[in-house]
């Protein structure tokens, strides 16, 4: 397999997400190999059909690899080696195919859930959460039950929930696939804009070429087993 990372700047110690010679195996059989670095504010897109191992790669990076899978290699974030750290200490924000807003909490409580405990004072926390809602055009939605929100609204809340936890990198696991066509571009643009504004390295997994192209970064195609270099944005 070719190394997609060659085309990007390898700067292991700088602010970037580095996948250092990562190989994922399922019951001993190699599934994929990747070696790359993602710079802050840029997006690396990984494309592949289901079963190609792209979700297990995200699981490995985020620290959720299932017992059936084995992986070798290292994950570095801003110079920290994450490989052996438990998921909760990696500071990697994860967005899923569905928004996964906790149904037992209100929209606002979902956001409060994410704000670090170091930020004290319920007034301050509340205003931060409300500000986050405002930022994505959902002011006044705080008291709502998440189930009453549309798919696009849920994804926006989920995005803010992820960002409020102050991650140092973002993993996106087909977060737009459940949205309908006309909402999709809008939400996607918002996610990418906020990621870039927060200067986060982003790893996007998708099987939708439109997503990949909109991301504007490098594309690694697992099916082709090769790195496709699109015009950088």
């Amino acid at each position, binding site marked *: 397999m070719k190394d997609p990372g060659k085309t990007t700047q390898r700067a292991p110690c700088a602010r970037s997400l580095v996948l250092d010679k990562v190989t994922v195996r399922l019951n001993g059989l190699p599934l994929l190999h990747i070696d790359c670095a993602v710079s802050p504010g840029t997006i690396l897109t990984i494309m592949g059909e289901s079963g190609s191992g792209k979700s297990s790669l995200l699981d490995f990076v985020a620290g959720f690899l299932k*017992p059936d899978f084995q992986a070798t290699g290292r994950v570095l974030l801003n110079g920290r080696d994450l490989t052996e750290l438990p998921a909760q200490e990696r500071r990697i924000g994860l967005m899923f195919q569905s928004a996964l807003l*906790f149904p037992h909490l209100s929209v606002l409580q979902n956001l409060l859930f994410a704000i670090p405990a170091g930020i004290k004072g319920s007034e301050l926390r509340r205003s931060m959460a409300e500000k986050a809602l405002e930022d994505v055009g959902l002011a006044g939605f705080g008291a709502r039950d998440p189930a009453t929100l549309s798919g696009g609204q849920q994804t926006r809340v989920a995005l803010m929930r992820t960002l409020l936890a102050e991650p140092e990198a973002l993993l996106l696991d087909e977060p737009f696939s459940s949205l309908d066509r006309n909402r999709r571009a809008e939400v996607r643009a918002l996610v990418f804009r906020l990621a870039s504004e927060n200067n986060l390295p982003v790893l996007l997994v998708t099987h939708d070429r439109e997503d990949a192209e909109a991301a504007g970064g490098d594309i690694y195609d697992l099916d082709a087993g090769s790195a496709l270099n699109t015009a950088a944005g």
Partner: protein
Amino acid sequence: MPPGNARPDLPTVLATGLLLGPVLAGLAGTLLPAFGYLPVLGFDTLNLDAFRQLVATPGLSRSAALSFGTGLATSLLSLAIVLLFTAGWSGTKTFRRLSRFLSPLLSVPHAAAAIGLAFLIAPSGFLVRLLSPWATGWSRPPDILILQDPYGLSLTFALVAKEVPFLFLMTLAALNRPHVQEYAKAARSLGYGRVAGFLTAVLPQIYPLIRLPMLAVIAYATSVVDVAEILGPTTPPPLAPRLVQWMNDPDLAKRLMASAGTLLQLAVSAAALLVYLVLEKAVSAVTTASSTRGWRFRRDRALRGAGLVLMALVAAAMVLSMGLLGLWSVAKSWWFPAALPQRWDAARAGDAIGMGGPALLATVLLAIAAAFAATALTLWLLETRNTHQKNRSRRLNALFFMPLLIPQIGFLFGLNMLFLVMGLNGSFFAVLLAHLVFVFPYAYLALSDPWYRLDPRYTKAASSLGASQARIFWQVRFPLLLRPVLVTFAVAAAVSVGQYLPTLLIGAGRIVTVTTESVALASGGNRQVAAVYAVLQLMIPLAGFSLAALIPSLVYRNRTAMGVSRT
């Protein structure tokens, strides 16, 4: 048919009648005698004498406190161990391995578990023998109060060891719900520790599925008879064993007192349930508050370790106890402090099994009949509600679980009198009916979730191909759900095998099962025979669960998608 005002369908009526009839009749049969009204025995004036007599009984408040305390402690501890372990380890290899160990333990009947544990932890039991005399210096068992301790600690321990597998399996089933694992990931990617993430983000999703089983555990543990008779304190005993004693007293006036005592038992169980509901509210408020404050609890190694150790302890205690029962069943002499029997005698185990033939037969027939009836009724009920697209009425569900939420003893005495008057006592049918009251709720509990989770598109696809309702059931839904249906059957059979009090009371001695024999022999002097019966009691449900696992694997050996889904 519009939901809500619709006339209830036949299976719902049947199930309601089956459960509600005996429970209400039994409760009435308890309530009236408590107030002095039991005309068949010549008591026909309403008065409070029974209560006065009850209150004057020495040690009553301590008995009630014991029932309340051991019951609540058992339930809370069991839940805590299960949740802590699940929170700390779900999704790991350790979790998977231990799950495989724990699932078969569900089939261990309470009495058998108690007998095995008694031999494990007694001062002359296996653990002390392993360490004696080389480490302890004891050439004779120490005089330490372990079994039947006045605070019911050994009773609590045995009940915890037995309830943990049950609650754990209920939790495992709940974890199969869609997205549950993703919620856990979401919380952890936001920086929450495993345990905190589970408790704040996952537990609220799955708790509704664990709640009823948990309430059933509380009701059971506050009113348990067989385990308490084997391991519970006796000076005084908890309330429930005392009630049985009074009920069996040749002085019939004691029956009125027993009825009054039963009302006290109901109050004790209700109080424990109430306390739990309050605790539930408090815990939910605390976790929500802690999560909106963003407390991450990232460093939860110690907690996770505790969860693992406790769970492993429970599993080890149960597995060891069962192993000891197996050893004793072929041991002739096994003197202290030998760690292994000195003389073996497998032939006598064979004799005992031969003598237990009728009991074995009765147990198996009852288990199969009860499991068949309960599973069939559950299927019918689910299928009817399914095709009518009715809303799942929570009230109706709660009703199905009622027999599990009211202590058995609360209505069995009354039911016993009712059957006696009807001349049904001691018949196979009456015992079967009594078993069904307890078996059906478990069957419903086991099957309803997989049934509702089956992708409705299969049915739609079959309908669009012109299949009739009956054909859809028999050729699509039933085969797709073969595995859960068989597991339900096995659960139902195991519940039937475990029934002690209903068999004893309603069977009037004419219906003898391995379980009633086992409890009778547990009080006797021959450990070998007691162990043989306990092993028999264990083998029947184990065979059921093995078959339930084996049959689908054989039927669908060439169908990859029908394999066991892994969590």
